[in-house]
């Protein structure tokens, strides 16, 4: 009995973890698009740095995720 429970444990764990996965529609991404969801500690400073970098390099894009999570790109 205990052996079969042990065998089932990884499957149960995976089921429990994957149950939280869901696709988010474009119109539901308001909270995801919030700057606070960024990995950067200071999002405004990061945006300024990126702007400066883009100006220096003469190119844009390729940094981080595209857009604000609104699925428009």
């Amino acid at each position, binding site marked *: 009995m205990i052996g079969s429970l042990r065998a089932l444990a990884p499957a149960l764990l995976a089921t429990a973890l994957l149950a939280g996965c869901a696709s988010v529609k474009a*119109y539901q991404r308001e909270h995801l698009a919030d700057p606070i969801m960024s990995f950067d500690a200071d999002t405004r400073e990061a945006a300024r740095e990126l702007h400066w970098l883009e100006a220096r390099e003469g190119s844009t894009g390729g940094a981080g995720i595209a857009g*604000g999570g609104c699925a428009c790109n």
Partner: protein
Amino acid sequence: LTDLAGATVMLSELRGQVVVVNFWASWCKPCKRELMRLDQWNRELDGRPARIVAVSIDSDREKAARFIQDKGLALPVFHDGPSGLAAVLDLPSLPCTVVLDAWGRVVRVRGGGDDDTVRELRHTVEALLENRPASVRAGEVSG
């Protein structure tokens, strides 16, 4: 729908005109860029039987109102939130624009907010205004 002052408005009041309904949000940067273009286009349509209306899907109406006020946009803006029409229509992307003919039928659904999008929407609306068949199938989603 409600306008930014909170008054209820029916889209059916615009029946008889070609109506371009643009779904946008203050947290969506491409939406805001497109809205500026649509505002300009709406001014150009003055006196013709076509209207552009913007529907904000922000949860907070104030955020939408602040953006419209800051930019001085003149096109009619309504607020519907993320669980209203956007959910009913299950918008495929944001920004997303729906073109309705004079009878309120959906002629086109177009995602995206770049220059090409606005150009294509203009083409569709001009075709409807001239009673030409639009070059796209009804209900086609593109972009």
